[in-house]
Structure formats: structure tokens, C-alpha cells
């Protein structure tokens, strides 16, 4: 019996609707379920605007002092992205793959919640370069 909703003959695999909406949904699903947290130091850290590890100090100084060793970098660069601050050792970091890259607009990092103690803080790990080979 053909599938009534797709018109696909019985036994055949329904074609994948490769529209921007479905691709975006798939990418979003991948990032909502990024799998187990990788080991090792994160490549970037994303903190919500309301997060302040030491309210007695300037927030950027406090974030730098708290996360410099975690990132294992000499200097922590801060960028404002949406409603978060993004900390990274590379001032040229980008949230997405560059516009000229075939993987654009996929995210450059997979983001993992750091833990209940630092609510809203997420550690970012660079997506492996061989992601297309999977």
C-alpha cells in the first residue's frame, strides 16, 4: 500500500525534504543533543549576562580570573554575542563556521552545560574538522 501522506510506494523510503527549514532543524537537534561532554579544556566559554563569579570585582576581571586557567590561555578575549558573553583565547573566534566554509551556518562549537554550580555557563568545544567525513 502506498503511504497516504507522502505518496511513497509501499516498501520505499520516503524522500528526505532537504529544505532550509529541515536542515536547520537537524542542525539544531544536533546541538541540543551534542552527546557526551568531551574531555580536556574547552575552546570557548559562554556565560549569560547575569552571571557574575565575584560581584565585588569588575565583571570582566572576575570572568578572566575565573576562566583563564580553565581555557589555559594567556589572555581571555571577550565578545558579546546575543545575550551572552563569550570568552576565548582567540580574538578571531567565530560562533559559526565562516561564511566561505561549506559548513556555514553550522556552529563552530558544541556547547555543554558546565554544571549546576555555574548556572547557565556552557563550555564550547570546537567541532572536529573531519565532521563531514562522518
Amino acid at each position, binding site marked *: 500500500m502506498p503511504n497516504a501522506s507522502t505518496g511513497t510506494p509501499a516498501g520505499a523510503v520516503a524522500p528526505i525534504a532537504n529544505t532550509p527549514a529541515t536542515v536547520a532543524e537537524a542542525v539544531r537537534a544536533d546541538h541540543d543533543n551534542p552527546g557526551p561532554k568531551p574531555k580536556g579544556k574547552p575552546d570557548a566559554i559562554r556565560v549569560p549576562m547575569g552571571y557574575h563569579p565575584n560581584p565585588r*570585582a*569588575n565583571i*570582566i*576581571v572576575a570572568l*578572566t*580570573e575565573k576562566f*583563564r586557567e580553565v581555557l589555559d590561555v594567556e*589572555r*581571555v*578575549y*571577550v*565578545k*558579546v*554575542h546575543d545575550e551572552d558573553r563569550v570568552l*576565548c583565547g582567540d*580574538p*578571531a*573566534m*567565530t*560562533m*559559526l*563556521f*565562516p*561564511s566561505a566554509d561549506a559548513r*556555514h*551556518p553550522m556552529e*563552530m562549537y558544541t556547547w555543554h552545560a558546565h554544571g549546576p554550580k555555574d548556572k547557565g555557563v556552557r563550555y564550547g568545544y570546537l567541532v572536529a574538522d573531519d565532521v563531514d567525513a562522518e
Partner: protein
Amino acid sequence: MAGSNRYINATAFSWAPLPSGVAINVDGVTQVAIDPGAKSVMFKGDGDTHASFKAVIENDPRISVRAANVLALLTIPQGVAGTVNFLLNHAKTRAGSGAIAFTATNCMRVDNSISMPHGGFAEGATTFETYSTDGVTSPISYSVVV
């Protein structure tokens, strides 16, 4: 040491072509300005007399610098992407801890004007425009020297 959160004098201004060219150092800096170039849209309807919704939809950051080293500013080519670095000194420690280091990637020199007043120092005024590598990440980042 950044207790006072007071800053003075931008120094160590440089521009280097991407991906990793030799930096052009600009000394004699008298002023640096960062303009985020943000644009917002607002909505109001029905009986609204004020905006009832507003969103920032665009950012187009630019950096301008004024400096006495006119020759260095003239050396920066127009329309070539590079990286601008400069340091905003902490008012107490001066260039030591507490200073803010600014970095702007994808920075292109656009305008370059020079004033040469009689009996006064010549001064160059250069404007850099930026673009984002991925369309969503700001090309400008900053770091506090701790």
C-alpha cells in the same frame, strides 16, 4: 589591579594585514574611538505612543584613530583586511595590569584624512570599517590584562 576602573590614553595602536602580515605600528596616538554602528527597529501600533517593541537588527562596527604619525597612517592600504590592536591603559598602572587590550579582526582602512595646521603638529585621522567572518560574531573583542 583594576580597582578604580578608570582608564586613560590609548597606546600601542597597530594594524596588520591578514592572515599574518607585518604590523604597521602607529605612535603619537591622540584619540581612538569605537563606534558599534548598531541599528535598531521599533514597533508601535494601536494606541501606542511609545515603542512597544524594539530590536537591534544590525551592527557595523568601525574604529577611528587620530595620530601624529601621519606617515604610518598613510602606509595602511585602503580596503585591505587586517587586524587592529590597541591598548587602553589603566589610569593608575599605565599599560600594566588593568589595561584593556582591544582587537578588531577583518578591519579595513576606509577614510584617511590629514590636517596640517600652520604652526601646529600635523595629524592624521583614519577610519577602519569591519566585517564579520561568519555574519553573526562581532569582529571586535577585548581583554583585561590581569
